[in-house]
């Protein structure tokens, strides 16, 4: 419970946080305590009982949930917050996305920072400036906003081609409207800051076309887990490596060694969510196999449309189109018209490159 009711009026909150924390600490077999001095501050501490973890288990876990946002890599953010610990926490969230972060404590010092580094690579990739509402200074805000706009027009080559966005971090949505409508603040995030909020903010900053709100960070694991994938390659080493990579992300993989076998497996109805197809195979190559698969799918779809076949019989889709992705070591061959003409949806390099695999797969399986 808070010392008096004026605390919640000034700082928000109901005092329930402490009860929750105590409960958590109890569950962890520990004790919570605090030292408080009115007018100065409080220090909270707790003990908890842990057991020794397995060697390498954390590595494995983190690798599974490694957020893959190749488009954010190399971007910078500036955090303006006079509470250093809070600023560091914001920085931590951003760094998880692969973003480089600088911290300043006031808008004024941020302006100095911008003018000191104005023609350097330090500001080249600055995408967003996060300002905590506590550090918001109305007078300086206009200066800051103008300085950011100038960054793009003074000839420095940037990857973004547009001014960095200003994002306000505030307690509630109440304060946002007038600042946003004044055109100074581009984006508002409520605290506590969530990863999904930061992602949306950055996506807007880099001009992401997808308007859909991201609810959780996507990873190859979240896209591929449980998906049935067919791998077609006549070389057994390539098959094994592709299978290993896809299985690592939780896919259920079937391997076949020929175009002909691919036809058998992808004749509707079937269970596969996608197919990775090698292009150069003897007897029937990837192009021909794909052509024939599309043929089979078209015939099947016609039957369903004409009523000759009930879609319920296939139990899954009324309109068959299995995503077929070419695997190729020779990118030129793949971007060739022929690839798309025969009905392939896209291509990935062989062997797989994680970032490319993610962005290609995301197109077909959405973002989680």
């Amino acid at each position: 419970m808070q010392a008096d009711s004026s605390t919640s009026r000034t700082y928000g909150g109901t005092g329930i946080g402490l009860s929750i924390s105590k409960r958590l600490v109890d569950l962890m077999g520990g004790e919570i305590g605090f030292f408080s001095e009115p007018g100065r501050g409080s220090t909270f501490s707790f003990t908890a009982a842990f057991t020794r973890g397995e060697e390498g288990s954390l590595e494995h876990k983190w690798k599974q949930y490694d957020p893959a946002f190749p488009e954010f890599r190399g971007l910078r953010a500036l955090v303006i917050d006079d509470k250093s610990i809070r600023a560091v926490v914001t920085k931590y969230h951003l760094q998880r996305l692969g973003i480089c972060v600088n911290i300043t404590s006031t808008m004024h010092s941020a302006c100095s920072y911008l003018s000191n580094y104005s023609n350097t690579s330090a500001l080249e990739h600055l995408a967003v400036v996060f300002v905590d509402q506590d550090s918001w200074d109305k007078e300086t805000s206009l200066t800051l906003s103008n300085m950011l706009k100038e960054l793009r027009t003074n000839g420095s080559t940037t990857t973004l081609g547009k001014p960095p966005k200003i994002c306000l971090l505030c307690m509630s949505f109440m304060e946002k409207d007038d600042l946003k409508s004044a055109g100074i603040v581009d984006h508002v995030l409520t605290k506590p800051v969530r990863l999904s909020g930061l992602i949306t903010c950055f996506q807007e900053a880099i001009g992401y076309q997808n308007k859909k709100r991201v609810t959780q960070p996507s990873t190859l694991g979240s896209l591929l887990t449980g998906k049935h994938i067919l791998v077609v390659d006549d070389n057994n080493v390539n098959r094994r490596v592709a299978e290993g990579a896809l299985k690592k992300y939780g896919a259920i993989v079937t391997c076949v060694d020929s175009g002909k076998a691919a036809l058998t497996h992808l004749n509707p109805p079937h269970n596969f969510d996608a197919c990775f197809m090698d292009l150069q195979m003897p007897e029937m190559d990837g192009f021909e196999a794909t052509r024939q698969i599309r043929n089979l799918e078209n015939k099947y779809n016609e039957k369903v449309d004409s009523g000759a076949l009930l879609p319920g019989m296939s139990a899954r889709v009324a309109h068959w189109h299995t995503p077929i992705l070419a695997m190729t070591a020779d990118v030129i061959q793949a971007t060739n018209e022929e690839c798309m003409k025969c009905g392939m949806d896209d291509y990935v390099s062989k062997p797989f490159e994680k970032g490319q695999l993610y962005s290609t797969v995301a197109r077909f399986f959405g973002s989680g």
Partner: protein
Amino acid sequence: MEVGQLQRSFVEYMASLFREGFLDAQFSQLQQLQDDSNPDFVVEVVSLFFEDSERLLNDLTMALDQPNVDFKQVDAHVHQLKGSSSSVGAQRVKNCCVPFRNCCEEQNTETCLRCLQQIKQEYLLVKNKLQTLFELEQQIVAAGGAIPMVQ
């Protein structure tokens, strides 16, 4: 040899293989795919690569030994070898394949034979290196140690 020494030798040996170009980043990728649910992945894939390569090298030798060489067939074999060496990260073997395919296009038996010779050499070298690496791993495990992750 005590575990610490073995582990250090392993790390140095691995680093040298990358430095000297025998292995490339794809091999690291394979190592990253290995985990508790797939504990022998690297050895499995590399063994497949050895089998596959030896078969292909034999096929190549026979194909180039014919009175009328079928260069399309030779090229197809080299293409396979390029693919599999690329998948395991056997960089030097993979790099031999491109000039080899050029020689096939020129339909020059002489130069093809030289390419074959070179690729055989590179293959035997990397096979030797990888086998040494796996032996070191086994020694470490036998001595009760964990195999260091090399980034």
